């Protein structure tokens, strides 16, 4: 098959909607456009039935016991906000302490920071050089004021998987609620809310080949029954936890995406892992001084390859490989002028953080694409190294860390 450009390898940012998902959604824009909250006519019933069916599809993917435990939202950012603020405000009489991790998504970190300004106390656990937290750290951070632990399943930048099952044992034993941002991990690594003792889980449709603008929060209803203070006031939809007319076509697509993932998970994982290994073997085989950021299997997202190419800055790499869509942890790709906080939390040297590229492989990538991408990445790294003074130092055997640099 002929390659089409640009090649998309940024599947942690978002994914292409699976054609089967689009097909499932279409009738809910045209014929079945009812409001799922309309109780008195056919249009409403059809919409409600479709939403309930989707709820079951999502429930099955998460391993939840009851479809009522699924609350539809606008996406994982909203789910994270609802979970953390909702728990904090509901249980503030019981305690004011929350535990999370330095490498969490901003939807979790910034929510926690807001709560700190409101008087909550938050512990941000450190990670090791692979990006993992230690369950012992969770155990020792829990106090009698702790009401919630929030640990992501799988990191969006470096693909590191957290030992959630072990953490779930601890939180259950100590009677503390456990929330996980499972956006990147669900369907890619083992995840089951019941066996892992997860009480709240955020997921998003567009990361699993569904549409943008729809997500869900799993809220455990039994042992323990988790209660949340709603963020929005309104019609009391979603058992009062999330008011607002349901995005029926989006929810239908989300459900379909979950169903496909449930059925095809094994093949999907094998496919992306095969491509990732193919890419990794080619890059590491051809280039010296390249570094894998994050953990290795089984603690790595199967489609994530985050690597730093020493002596080459990430944004210039991305300009060089302009026919390939990837991401970088370089400051130059953001407005902040700081390299990735995730890589810095791992203790990665700032210059290597500036040199990082994240390849996110997905369901629709092919081996031909990987071969082509590897070829142009290798060519560009070589070209950019030839114009890098740091590479000259390396070849001359000078450790540039010993040079007195003047920060500007």
């Amino acid at each position, binding site marked *: 098959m002929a390659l089409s450009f640009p090649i998309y390898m940024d599947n942690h940012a978002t994914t292409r909607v699976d054609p089967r998902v689009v097909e499932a959604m279409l009738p809910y824009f045209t014929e079945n456009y009812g409001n799922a909250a309309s109780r008195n006519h056919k249009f409403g019933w059809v919409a409600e039935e479709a939403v309930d069916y989707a709820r079951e599809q999502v429930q099955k993917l998460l391993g939840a016991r009851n479809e009522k435990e699924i609350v539809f939202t606008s996406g994982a950012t909203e789910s994270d906000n609802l979970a953390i603020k909702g728990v904090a405000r509901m249980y503030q009489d019981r305690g004011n302490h929350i535990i999370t991790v330095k490498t969490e998504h901003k939807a979790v970190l910034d929510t926690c920071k807001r709560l700190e300004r409101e008087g909550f106390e938050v512990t941000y656990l450190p990670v090791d050089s692979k990006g993992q937290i230690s369950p012992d750290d969770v155990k020792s951070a829990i106090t009698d004021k702790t009401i919630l632990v929030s640990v992501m399943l799988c990191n969006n930048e470096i693909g590191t998987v957290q030992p959630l099952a072990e953490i779930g044992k601890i939180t259950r034993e100590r009677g503390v609620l456990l929330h996980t941002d499972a956006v990147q991990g669900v369907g890619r690594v083992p995840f089951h809310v019941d066996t892992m003792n997860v009480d709240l889980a955020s997921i998003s449709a567009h990361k699993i080949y569904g549409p943008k603008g729809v997500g869900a929060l799993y809220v455990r209803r039994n042992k323990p029954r988790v209660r949340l203070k709603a963020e929005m006031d309104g019609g009391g939809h979603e058992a009062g936890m999330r008011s607002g007319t349901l995005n029926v076509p989006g929810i239908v697509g989300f459900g379909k995406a979950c169903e496909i993932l449930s059925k095809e998970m094994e093949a999907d994982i094998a496919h992306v892992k095969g491509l990732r290994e193919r890419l990794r073997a080619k890059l590491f085989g051809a280039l010296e001084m390249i570094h894998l950021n994050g953990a290795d299997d089984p603690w790595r997202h199967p489609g994530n390859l985050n690597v730093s190419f020493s*002596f*080459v*800055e990430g*944004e*210039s790499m991305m*300009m*060089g490989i302009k026919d390939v869509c990837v991401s970088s942890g*370089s*400051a*130059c790709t953001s*407005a902040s*002028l700081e*390299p990735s906080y995730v890589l810095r939390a791992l203790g990665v*040297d*700032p*210059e290597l953080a*500036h040199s990082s590229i994240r390849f996110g492989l997905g369901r629709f990538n092919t081996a031909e694409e990987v071969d082509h991408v590897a070829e142009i990445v290798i060519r560009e790294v070589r070209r950019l190294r*030839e*114009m*890098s*003074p*740091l*590479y*000259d130092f390396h070849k001359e055997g000078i450790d*540039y*860390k010993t040079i007195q*640099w*003047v*920060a*500007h």
Partner: protein
Amino acid sequence: MAYSEKLIDHYEQPRNVGTLDKDDPNVGSGLVGAPACGDVMRLQIKVNPETQIIEDAKFKTFGCGSAIASSSLATEWVKGKTVDEAMSLKNTDIVEELNLPPVKIHCSVLAEDAVKSAIADFRKKQAATRGETQDKSVEQPHAHD
């Protein structure tokens, strides 16, 4: 972020990539930036001591596309100019020529610093070869913001 055609041209076909002999008394070398900040520029000039004209300029840059383009443009501009003329190079000229977005202005500042640092190095060497008596007459590089 959409970059200007000129910037992309300098990034894709950078002018004057390379290295000059740093031990040559007529070569001035400037090394500015820091790896931890994500950009390092080395810019070198070769000056005709009789005419004070910059006859060659080379650079190597670790940095984003704007940093590479800024240093490429700087070498192109200083070539053929006298050292004094090159001292008047302003980062704002680079910003204008490459149409750098606001977050990339520091790249042009770094390129200006690299040129001035190379000139300062050249003048220091010249002063050293002329001996101590003439040393005082050598103009020192101006501080700049």
